[in-house]
């Protein structure tokens, strides 16, 4: 199957066949990262710009390593959003980068829709590495890859996503992706963190953790942004962690072979108790990171016509 998309802007735009192709390609790349020489020449002579307007360690490093393992030249640009507001516009920055002829531009931006603006404007492939509270497609793809790896399938599984759904691009991308792949998605979070009409996305919504994780095959905990306390989204971390932290007790409600995921970075003791996060019998958090490199390799490869 030829991959037809110019850009990866969101999971919303991907078909089931496209998701399967990406996951299968990623699976075939996993092995490269285990070699002694972790490099293949597939993207030699191609260049990838990582344009990050928001702080990121995991995602940016993951994209950089993905590019390098495929022998692409990777360039990282960190810009603060504030300088964009005051100085050069995103469009001007993008046009300048375009003029230098990269093959792929990976962008993370705090403003939802910023990658879409570039995709319309530029001839290069754009990969959305997270835009505001909108989508984070590569995270959802690596999550789906991890679920498939651990469970052998996605269809028919019950996946609970817990935490600040309102501000989470990870949640939105996973809702689209997991629903398309046939999983049953259940959400839980304080009422103030559940965006309006979210049930129209085809999910079941709860305001307490226990209701959501009963018989779950997968529990995905979302990061709490500590600054939300000041916006009166929730009263305190103390209260949040008492009711929404996944721990040894409440995890008993889930299936025996439940896997626990987190997009990182974890606030230990807030979203997940440390003993669960570090328990290799259920926590797959580091597998997610490992699969992230493979998924990003797969996307770079497919977007630059690797499978043609």
């Amino acid at each position, binding site marked *: 199957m030829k991959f037809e998309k110019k850009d990866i802007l969101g999971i*919303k735009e991907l078909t089931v066949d496209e998701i399967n192709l990406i996951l299968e390609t990623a699976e075939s790349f996993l092995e490269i990262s285990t070699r002694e020489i972790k490099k293949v020449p597939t993207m030699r002579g191609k260049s990838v710009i990582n344009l990050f307007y928001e702080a990121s360690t995991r995602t940016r490093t993951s994209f950089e390593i993905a590019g390098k393992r495929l022998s692409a030249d990777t360039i990282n640009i960190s810009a603060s959003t504030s300088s*964009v*507001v005051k100085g050069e*516009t*995103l*469009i001007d920055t993008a046009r300048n980068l375009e003029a230098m002829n990269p093959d792929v531009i990976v962008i993370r*931006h*705090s*403003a*939802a*829709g*910023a990658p*879409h*603006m570039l995709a319309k404007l530029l001839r290069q492939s754009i990969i959305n590495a997270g*835009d*505001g*509270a*909108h*989508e984070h497609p590569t995270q959802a793809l690596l999550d789906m890859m991890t679920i498939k790896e651990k469970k052998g399938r996605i269809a028919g599984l019950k996946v609970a996503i817990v935490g600040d759904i309102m501000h989470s*691009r990870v949640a*939105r991308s996973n809702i689209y992706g997991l629903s398309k792949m046939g999983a049953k998605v259940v959400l839980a979070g304080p009422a103030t963190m559940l*965006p*309006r*009409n*979210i049930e*129209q*996305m085809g999910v079941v919504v709860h305001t307490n953790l226990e209701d959501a994780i009963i018989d779950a095959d997968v529990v995905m905990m979302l990061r709490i942004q500590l600054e939300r306390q000041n916006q009166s989204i929730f009263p305190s971390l103390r209260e949040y962690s008492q009711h929404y932290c996944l721990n040894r007790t409440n995890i008993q409600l889930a299936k025996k072979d439940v896997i626990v995921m987190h997009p990182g970075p974890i606030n230990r003791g807030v979203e997940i108790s440390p003993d669960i996060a570090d328990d290799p019998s259920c926590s797959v958090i580091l597998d997610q990171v490992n699969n992230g490199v493979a998924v990003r390799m797969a996307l770079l490869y497919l977007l630059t016509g690797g499978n043609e």
Partner: protein
Amino acid sequence: MKLLLTGARVIDPSQKMDVAADVLLENGKIAGIAPELVKTINSKYPGKVKAIDLSGMIVVPGLIDMHTHLREPGFEYKETIASGSAAAVAGGFTSVACMPNSSPINDNRSITEFIKRKAAQAALTNIYPIGAISKDSAGSQLTEFWDLKEAGIVALSDDGKPVMDAALMRRALEYAFSLGLPVISHCEDINLFGGGLMNEGYYSTILGLRGVPSIAEEAMVARDILIAEFTKTSVHVAHVSTAGSVRLIREAKKRGLQVTAETAPHYFTLTDESLQSYDTNFKVNPPLRGIDDLTAIKEGLADGTLDAIACDHAPHGRTDKEVEFEYAACGISGLETSLGLSLQLIRDGVLSWPELIAKMSTNPARILNLPKGTLKAGADGDITVIDPQIQWTVDVKAFRSRGKNSPFHGREMQGRAVLTIVGGEIKYDGR
């Protein structure tokens, strides 16, 4: 020279007129309306009458947009009084009222006088300045209403910003009412607004954009109705966008309160579904709402709850719009599409011709106490001639406005102004 408009259908809601007749203009005023005037006038004043055949056209009192932003002084790259009034006549408007959020804000006599002077020099339409309610529209201290009135303002508003302090709003309504000045309220509870970017609902959820709940508007509509009732004054609600606001205003009117309201064409034409492309031309405040709101706006227009259609003309430069959605300025350059979009209401059976013209001319004149919006003999010769059949396509490149920010670019329209006459003079001829 006398001007004789012949063969058109003449609609004047101010005198419940809807007839086939000829209209005579003389010395800048309406001199008379009667069938077949053309047969007698020429022989009476040989060589002194310029007759224009308007068969198939509709002649109405000059349209009035009571809510525009002309951007001058301060934001001349977005619009000037000259360019804004050129856009106005091209859109069929003979009068516009301009909001005070220029830079500096029109909160004192000298700015009002500047606008009046610029208008006298360069404007193709009548320009009616609206003064700020509070100094710098900061919401803490009243401006000098009396002085502003003497300088020529026709209403007061902090448009663009709500008056959050209810006590200040109470004082504004009381003081303004004693001076006969209407107060136009931009209803938006700033805390509920919460820096929102689009209507709060399913689409804001999937797009990950902060939502503006409908209650941000409705809470203040309710508050202002209560203040007007308690103080026995009047209030005009600007750019109504939600079903809840329509319901509140309908109930207030039923109870006999002096509440009037306007909506804008985009609120009965578009919904928040359009924002899925993140196209900043759809970003407007209040935001485009849901389909239930759109339906309620049409019902409010049909049953008279909403008195006026005003386009909230908000021209912007490319630099204001060609940025991330979050940072983009709000607003639509609307003067040149307002009539075309509103005519759809007639075809949809929402309004009759006289009802639409009332909302775009007679009612705004009444709300702002302007001696306009009528074709009565002796009235100012402000006339809009509409071709109801003409098919055209919106092209922002052809806009006279400096603001090319329109979500309607490329839209197929039926009907537009083809002749705009201000004070007896033809200021726009698009035939």
